[in-house]
């Protein structure tokens, strides 16, 4: 008679809080920060639709120290989200073969990050120039 009695150990409930999974958890939570920022922008749009008084109070909120702290924190999380996102980018792409050889994943990450940085700086510069011109 078989004495098999396989024992399945449950997965620890807090697996996401410990290394090596913690970095993944932080990366995913940065997505929540992006959603919060989108909600702030949406609130601005709603205030704009509701009239000058509502938009003025929205602008007053944006200029408050609390808002500056929130935006600084959101900027940091967004930058981290960008860095980690480009780090996993090569994992989501087909393998690139160039002249019979594999393109290294680190090269893909660096190239994509560089393009993102150039685009961001370009956009910021355009905003500053256009803002000064208007």
């Amino acid at each position, binding site marked *: 008679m078989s*004495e*098999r*009695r*396989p*024992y*399945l*150990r449950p*997965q620890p409930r807090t*697996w*996401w809080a410990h290394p*090596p*999974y913690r970095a*993944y958890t932080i990366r*995913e939570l940065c997505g929540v920060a992006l959603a919060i920022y989108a909600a702030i922008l949406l609130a601005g749009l709603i205030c704009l639709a509701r009239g000058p008084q509502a938009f003025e109070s929205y602008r007053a909120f944006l200029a408050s120290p609390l808002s500056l702290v929130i935006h600084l924190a959101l900027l940091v999380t967004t930058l981290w989200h960008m860095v980690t996102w480009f780090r*996993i980018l*090569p*994992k*989501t*792409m*087909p*393998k690139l*073969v160039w*002249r*019979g*050889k*594999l393109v290294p994943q680190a090269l893909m990450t660096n190239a994509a990050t560089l393009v993102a940085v150039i685009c961001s700086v370009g956009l910021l510069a355009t905003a500053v120039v256009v803002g000064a011109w208007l």
Partner: protein
Amino acid sequence: MSDTKPKTIELRILRYCPSKDAKPAFGSFDVPYTDDMSVLQGLQEIKATLDGSLAFRWSCRMAVCGSCGMMINGTPKLACNTFLRDLAPGPVAIEPLQNFPIERDLVVTVGDFVKKIESIYPYVMPKVPKTIEEGTYLQTPGQMEEYASFADCINCMLCYAACPQFGANPDFIGPGAMALLQRYSSDSRDGGQQKRLDQIRGEDGVWSCTAVGICSEVCPKLVDPANAVNQNKSKSALDFFLSGLRKESVS
């Protein structure tokens, strides 16, 4: 004068005997070791001299067969290419692979994993079959590079032990089987892509994966199973949108 006293290291091993134990519990062994000894050799030393009832799987001793995967200090590793000198002074916690049912001591159930591998057609299905007279199927080195890393998988299941989504959903096809799927589906000689895509739809297919990525980090052969799974998410999504346009669905 050289120190002649042999060094010892404490190995704390999760033991489970289905006919005696209600649940697994740690047993401790002080094992004499030398600098060239692997964890596997430590286990063999225990079995030979301290406790003959200790059960564990092994075969090649050189990271080729994929039999001796286990959790070493909480990380999935091959016991044969993990050295005791790197774990000194200990103690070292040795457990069976996480996320798999334990049969006995360090031996886990592999049946489901084998079924998953079988389910993805693990062989080349030629687009147009050739006769022997017509010759062989040719491939350039560049075309081989596209799947070469996935062909290095040794089915050691360390990636499954590292995957929290497999832990949450044991029916998830998982990183190892997806690496094998990608090995064949990205082979220029193969024509079985659609049949394999049909096997990996839904939650139990690729969609349980949330790109945690630790599967690729623990892989002893640098197969990069996370890449295999995530490439197939895009393919599976495209297949979903195109499925309504295919001929076989019009009837």
